[in-house]
């Protein structure tokens, strides 16, 4: 019987081609969408992790509670020993102290008078230790527009747009005006080593990047840091591990809790990132659901048309003594075969396209102009194991639902009625 059905499917193009095509397209889109969103979400998460959240972040409790204000008066102290401890306890991660700060950047003329001035958001991180991963993490080499990366104490980077606004060139002197951790005013002179363009509006507006030791000097924060960021050695954020690491760390520091107690937060426990992380987790379900619905509708209609065309066949089969539910069942078998065929082909195409996008990417930096949140400027897909089977859900469900719905008409009709319709 199965052989009989298969032959029918293979030979009757109108029975198989259109549904297989619909399933193929739907499944390919499902896989592609999923790979794309995974890539996009992954990029988004990694981008935010590299610049501000880390995969894990250690701050003091007080700092964490007011993180928007970058309250360096609540900065971590004894950072060197704390970092060493972290390295010992969490060996799967790299730990990097950073200082987030704000202030004014002032460009003096030859007389020391202000020539131009602008508000800056600063990051102090390890730029000078040989082998520091921070340069790579922020892609500073790739982002360099003019000049060179800081090579010695006192050298800093400005974002390219900011340096143009202030009309200062590499080699020029700039003055940072801000307040120390203790709250008194500080003025500190830097040499502009180079300029960078990150490709992210939010970062390119007014950023100053300096070595953390310089910042410590400028802000009077000896052996202190706003935060210590942890990055998984694998380079990708793993939420479950991050959450459990944070829990282990925090429970060790549990009861004795004041503003200066270090706390660790996973990326997903910081700001809006939790929503993103959850989205990446649940997204595949939504895509499958949407495609199941859309494809079922199309296939239902295709099934109705096909069913009409096959009244004669159904009628004669009933006359020959086949049970109605058997006819119905064989139609569902047929749809399963179509679903499987379409899912296999569709998955292959989806993976192929996803692979192409993963390999070559699509530049969308033009679309991102003026955006204030950090978004990846390149669409990159990321194929994950799910993509190899995800498409089979919409592929199989939609064909079966489509047939179930369209078959009801035939099923409910009285046998004699079918014959009346058969005669004409």
């Amino acid at each position, binding site marked *: 019987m199965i052989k009989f059905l298969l*032959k029918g499917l293979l030979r009757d193009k109108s029975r198989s081609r259109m549904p297989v095509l619909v399933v193929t397209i739907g499944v390919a889109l499902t896989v592609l969408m999923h790979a794309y969103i995974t890539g996009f979400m992954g990029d988004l998460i990694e981008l935010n992790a590299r610049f501000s959240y880390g995969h894990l972040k250690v701050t003091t409790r007080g700092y964490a509670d007011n993180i928007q204000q970058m309250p360096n008066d609540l900065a971590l102290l004894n950072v060197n020993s704390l970092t060493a401890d972290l390295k010992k306890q969490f060996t799967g991660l790299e730990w990097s102290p950073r200082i987030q700060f704000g202030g004014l950047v002032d460009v003096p003329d030859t007389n020391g008078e202000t020539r131009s001035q602008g508000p800056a958001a600063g990051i102090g991180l390890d730029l000078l230790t040989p082998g520091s991963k921070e340069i790579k993490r922020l892609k500073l080499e790739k982002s360099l527009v003019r000049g060179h990366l800081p090579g010695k104490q006192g050298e800093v980077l400005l974002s390219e747009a900011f340096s143009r606004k202030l009309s200062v060139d590499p080699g020029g002197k700039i003055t940072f005006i801000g307040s120390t951790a203790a709250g008194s005013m500080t003025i500190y002179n830097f040499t502009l080593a180079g300029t960078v363009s990150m490709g992210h509006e939010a970062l390119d507006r007014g950023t100053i990047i300096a070595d953390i030791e310089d910042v410590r000097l400028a802000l009077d924060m000896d052996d202190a840091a706003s935060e210590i960021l942890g990055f998984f050695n694998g380079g990708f954020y793993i939420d479950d591990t991050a959450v459990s690491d944070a829990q282990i760390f925090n429970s060790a520091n549990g009861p004795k809790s004041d503003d200066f107690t270090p706390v660790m937060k996973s990326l997903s426990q910081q700001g809006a990132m939790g929503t993103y992380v959850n989205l990446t987790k649940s997204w595949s379900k939504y895509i499958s659901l949407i495609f199941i619905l859309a494809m079922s509708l199309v296939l239902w209609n295709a099934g109705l048309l096909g069913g009409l065309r096959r009244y004669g066949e159904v009628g*004669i089969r*009933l*006359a*020959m003594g*086949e*049970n109605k539910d058997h006819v119905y069942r064989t139609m569902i078998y047929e749809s399963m075969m179509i679903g499987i065929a379409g899912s296999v082909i569709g998955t292959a195409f989806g993976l192929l396209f996803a692979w192409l996008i993963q390999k070559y990417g699509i530049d969308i930096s033009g679309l991102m102009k003026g955006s204030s949140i950090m978004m990846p400027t390149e669409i990159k897909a990321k194929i994950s194991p799910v993509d190899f089977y995800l498409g089979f859900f919409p592929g199989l469900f939609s064909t079966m639902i489509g047939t179930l719905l369209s078959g009801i008409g035939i099923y409910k009709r009285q046998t004699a009625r079918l014959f009346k319709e058969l*005669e004409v």
Partner: protein
Amino acid sequence: MENSTIIRIEKLVKKFPMGKGEFTALNGIDLTVGRGEFAGLIGPSGSGKTTLLNVVGSLDVPSSGSVTVLDHSIGELSAKEAALLRKQNLGFIFQSYNLFAVHTVYENIEFPLLLLKYGPAERKKMVLEAIEWLGLTDKIRSKPPQLSGGECQRVAIARAMVKKPSLVLADEPTANLDAANSHNILKTMEVLNRELKTTFLFATHDEKVISYLRRKIFLADGKVINDERVTS
């Protein structure tokens, strides 16, 4: 053999709902058909031939009265039981051949045997036998769209006959055929009736069919108005 009854119809009434009221298509039919008969329902269009054939074939149920086919009371069968009766004992031939268009002649004829779950060897033997009866040997691998109308109807007959049913119901089997083809298939059915003892019940107003019948049952307005046996 001719003496045992295969169809027994008593006071059969068949009504169809029509608008607010009902339409009486069969209005008190009493009829018995014995095994091995070669009989036909004859009457003008609308006289109820197809309706009667459908009830006998368990494709439809009586409104009142009783119809017994091979000791099964049609009105009392469940859908499954009716299907089983059709599968095992009845063959249908229609005016439109209703062949499976994408399957070969061989596969079309084999289908009823698949439903009956015959093994492959037995299926092959039976299909080839039926193909021989109908003279379709050189068309085994053809598909219906490549066949003439006469050939299609021969395939339909082979498909109805392959399982050697006790009763074949043929509704206007020659309506789409020319004279030569009509005579051809009628002769074949006559032979099958003689050799396999299959009972044939036709519904027709075609003179060519009528000339082959050994029993002529005339219908008008849902009633049997005449019942003639041809004595040879």
